[in-house]
């Protein structure tokens, strides 16, 4: 054993150790990357679908997503943009871009009962990012379902936003009244169940609740031009009787008013 206290030994030891650790970590990170990416993609698809219904089985999620979800990319004015893949867009980065360059992803779930518009959201909680999806009915205002997630909210407090009790209470509530955002996550419990614009917050996590509220409003404002365009487009072709009458159409009419 050489003199373990000499300077040269210490230097060589530190260098070799660092090199070995670097190689080991790089190998692990690269080796696990494809599996992690798969897990992340699956998780994203699961959160998108969970805004509409609950799926847990991996293959079911992939199948459901491939068959029923259409990806749309829109710009700030509400026009559809071609040549970009909605799934690969990162909302956080898009929100930071200037209005003209911003591309927003939108997921349309084609169910037998009609289209559901799944709007992605991104905002700030207490400690770190929060994000989620809100599924809207054909009137583009009534909430069909939500899914939320977070990066580092406090377990048991802010982290509750991804729990079923929190997300299900949004069902049937409405985002806005006459084009003005009105949904409110109140402080703590005690929301009036008959109020279409009120849901319970989480006791002890008011800031996270406010963050959820703010990101819903932000997404609402960002996607409003597109929804208004669809609504006005849907009203015009009502007169010619080219479309076969179906239950879907009736719902559109009702919602459009």
């Amino acid at each position, binding site marked *: *054993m050489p003199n*373990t*206290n000499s300077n040269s*030994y*210490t230097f060589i*030891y*530190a260098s070799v*150790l*660092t090199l070995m*650790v670097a190689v*080991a*970590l790089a190998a*692990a*990170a690269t080796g*696990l990357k494809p*599996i*992690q990416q798969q*897990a*992340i993609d*699956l*998780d994203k698809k699961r959160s998108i679908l969970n805004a509409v219904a609950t799926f847990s089985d991996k293959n079911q999620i992939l199948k459901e997503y491939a068959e029923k979800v259409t990806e749309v990319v829109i710009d700030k004015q509400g026009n559809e943009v071609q040549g970009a893949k909605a799934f690969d867009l990162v909302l956080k980065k898009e929100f930071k871009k200037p209005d003209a360059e911003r591309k927003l992803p939108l997921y349309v779930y084609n169910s037998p009962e009609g289209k559901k518009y799944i709007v992605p959201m991104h905002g700030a909680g207490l400690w*770190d990012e929060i994000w989620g999806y809100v599924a809207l009915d054909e009137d583009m205002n009534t909430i069909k379902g939500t899914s939320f*997630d977070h*990066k*580092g909210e*406090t*377990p*048991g*407090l802010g*982290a509750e936003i991804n729990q079923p009790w929190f997300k299900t209470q949004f069902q049937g509530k409405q985002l806005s009244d006459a084009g003005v955002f009105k949904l409110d996550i109140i402080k703590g419990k005690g929301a009036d169940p008959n109020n279409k614009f009120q849901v319970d917050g989480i*006791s*002890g996590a008011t800031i996270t609740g406010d963050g959820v509220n703010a990101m819903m409003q932000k997404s609402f404002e960002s996607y409003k031009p597109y929804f208004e365009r669809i609504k006005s487009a849907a009203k015009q072709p009502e007169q010619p009787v080219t479309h076969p009458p179906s239950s879907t159409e009736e719902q559109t009419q009702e919602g459009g008013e």
Partner: protein
Amino acid sequence: MSQATESTAVAQQQNKEALFSPKNRRLVTDPLTDNNPITIQVLGLCSALAVTTQVKPALIMAICVTVVTAFANLIISLIRNGIPNRIRMIVQLVVIATLVVLVDQVLRAVVYDVSKQLSVFIGLIITNCIVMGRLEAFAMGNKPWPSFLDGIGNGLGYGVILVMVAVLREVFGAGTLLGFKVIPQFIYDAGYTNNGVMVTPAAAMFIIGIIIWIQRARNPKLVDIS
């Protein structure tokens, strides 16, 4: 040559006999009770307060810490004679940090949702005093196998307290256990509400304090009179 194989065989046999000798077994069982890292050594408290609101993250955390302490102890014990004394703490930290990053990467690939839930706390295993405490106190001066057992014992000792606290906090704070409802609805109807303090870290402090109290009341030898 036959002699050589014979002697290694004998050595192996001796080794095997020693694997679970009473002394080695105590390395695993002592930290569970009379030398518990949390209640007796009072180490690793910060994460015990942070990740114990629910049982599932606490369980995963306990497993991760056990893996890290066990392998950090093993690795440091293997290279203990070659570590330059002046940078030994840094070497220990490098080993711990590497293991923690590996655990984090594996969690992300295998159980992505749990890894999301634990978020920063996995990374913070690096700063858990138990890991480094065991390296300094045990692995630097003992052979690899006992060190490995010591790591497992201390990881489990940490885990036992973590799970105990998490069970109490989840049941009384949220009325659930591992996500399943355990407090029946009629009790809520009778006016019972979940205890709001239980979801805050302060409750973990009280529970750990009470555990320490009970443990020392039952075994006066543990009381530090100084």
